[in-house]
């Protein structure tokens, strides 16, 4: 890619070239300015949130730029208040349980289903595939009222298992949609070779095919993780028992329930608690994540 054309077109005289270089410089600087501005717009709210989590509610009300008096002490108060009094610790645990199990389940079920549909077509498999794709097109909101009663009837309303199953069901169509092309692209000869070596379907799937679809699987896992971690509507509608709250729901409750008595310092601390773990994970894995995005666009 480099050194393909180190020369500008010959028709340009030296003057033209100088003009062009000056234009380059302008655009170069302009681009940096725009990008820096956008980066500031992204980062400032986050820094301000962090800053505010070190302030007492009184200090927060006296203006956005008031300096906190006792940074360490207030930080400690705010974070312990958010963690204990507002139960964010418990909500975090609930979220980890629900998202962790749902993610494992949907990846297992989704990759199995995508694999079979892509590689062992049977009568009706095409219809099933389209039925799964249809799940991507309809908004969850359409289903929310009946879903409430379906879960109620099977006794899973307001329970973590109910929430987990719902998460799995709604993340399933996207998972299949994304993985189907990956399994489809794997050469059939490899499956045949594994079969000749005496591997059964399960073994071929788990030990040969899954590892070969790894880029796709990594990408979907990340997307599903973010999607499920951020899920708001399903828990708010289907999981109204306070002790089963997940983090996003707990935060919304925290911000609204107490009305005028909101402890704003603790609210900001809660935001920091919610954001920091995912942000750290992202900074560590951002290469894979961005790579997985390109895997998604280039298929």
């Amino acid at each position, binding site marked *: 890619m*480099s*050194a*393909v*054309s*180190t020369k*500008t*077109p010959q028709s340009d005289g030296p003057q033209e070239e100088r003009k062009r*270089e000056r234009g*380059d410089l302008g655009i*170069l600087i302009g*681009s940096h300015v725009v990008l820096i501005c956008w*980066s500031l*717009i*992204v980062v*400032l*709210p986050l820094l301000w949130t962090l800053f505010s989590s070190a302030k007492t509610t009184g200090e927060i*009300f006296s*203006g956005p730029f008031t300096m906190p008096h006792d940074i360490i002490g207030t930080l400690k108060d705010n974070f312990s208040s958010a963690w204990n009094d507002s139960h964010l610790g418990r909500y975090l645990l609930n979220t980890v349980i629900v998202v962790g199990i749902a993610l494992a389940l949907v990846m297992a*079920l989704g990759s199995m*289903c995508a694999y*079979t*549909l892509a590689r*062992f*077509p*049977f*009568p009706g498999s095409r219809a*099933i595939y389209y039925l799964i794709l249809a799940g991507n*097109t309809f*908004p969850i*909101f*359409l*289903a929310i*009222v*009946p879903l*409430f009663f*379906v879960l109620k009837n099977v006794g899973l309303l307001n329970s973590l298992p109910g929430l987990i199953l719902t998460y*799995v*069901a709604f993340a399933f169509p996207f998972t299949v949609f994304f993985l189907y092309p990956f399994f489809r692209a794997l050469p*059939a000869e490899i499956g045949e070779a594994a079969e000749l070596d005496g591997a059964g379907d*399960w073994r071929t*799937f788990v030990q040969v095919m899954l590892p070969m679809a790894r880029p796709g699987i990594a990408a979907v896992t990340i997307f599903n993780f*973010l999607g499920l971690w*951020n899920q*708001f*509507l399903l828990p708010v509608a289907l999981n109204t028992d306070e002790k089963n709250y997940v983090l*996003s729901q707990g*935060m*919304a409750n925290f*911000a609204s329930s107490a009305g005028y008595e909101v402890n704003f310092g603790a*609210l900001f601390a809660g935001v920091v608690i*919610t*954001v920091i773990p*995912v*942000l750290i994970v*992202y900074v560590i894995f*951002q290469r894979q994540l*961005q790579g997985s995005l*390109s895997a*998604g*666009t280039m298929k």
Partner: protein
Amino acid sequence: MPSAGAPTAAPKRGGRRMRPSRLLFVVITVGLPMVLYLGLVIWPFLQAIYYSLTNWGGFSSSMDFIGLDNYKQIFGDDVFMKALRNNVILAILVPLVTVVLSFVLATMVTVGGSTTGAVRGLKGSNIYRVVSFFPYTIPAIVIGLIWAQMYDPSKGIVNGILTHLPFGLGDRFNSFAWLGETATAMPASIFVIVWGFVGFYMVLFVAAIKGIPAELYDAARIDGAGRLRTMFSVTLPMIRETVQTAYIYLGVLALDAFVYMAALNPTGGPDNSTLVMSQDLFKTAFSQGQYGRASAMGVVLAAVTLLFAALVFGVNRLLGGKADK
């Protein structure tokens, strides 16, 4: 020889007999997830359509078939119509602003470097990419909460900065309630959604642009195309499919918008200026117990969503895009 059921190079459709072990494999791998999917996704979708034709909830707890009455009611309801209108505004503006902004930023990052020599991106572009992506990792509800605080009339940092504008310009932002004024509540909310998504689509576009063969840029340059020209004649057509996907995802998201609006203006904003259909639906169902009418709202929401997707496909095709594969 592999048995008859083994896949050939291009798996053919048809009902060739499978051996029992494979049949079991297929039944388990497809059947197990499908039970869950049919029960918790497809079945509720179908039920919603039926519920929407009944008077379930409301004054009686019985469920009678009432035909299209719910639809007549919600289309005669000013609040719902306003919510519908707000959703349409969101579905137009959110994708437009987000896609344009992320496309421009992605172009700057990838081909903003010198025009002499090979196409190259900006120095330090990786940092911009990583930083811009931050908001996508933050739960939407938390994004909403952060910005609700940012917009706060007296303690928020938005006014904190704007009141320092020179020439008396800053005075008007003293205690200005961004989310409390009918004129600004919607634009301010749109900005929050855009803020949350630009980084993601920027990274997506960067990936797509990097997939364009460098020779295309070289050729355009030898033909004397300037930067703007290259952007519209090379970059945009080459990543058309990605832009279309982005447009549809963002539109669908904007047609829901529940989580953002619930965090920014839980009650629908001043004079319902930011109320969206999903909020109205949620209230109608879970606060008022009018499940039939709420389901009708869900059907309308779904219909608008499908219409939107069809529209984007149609426009893209009119503008010369590929027909679907």
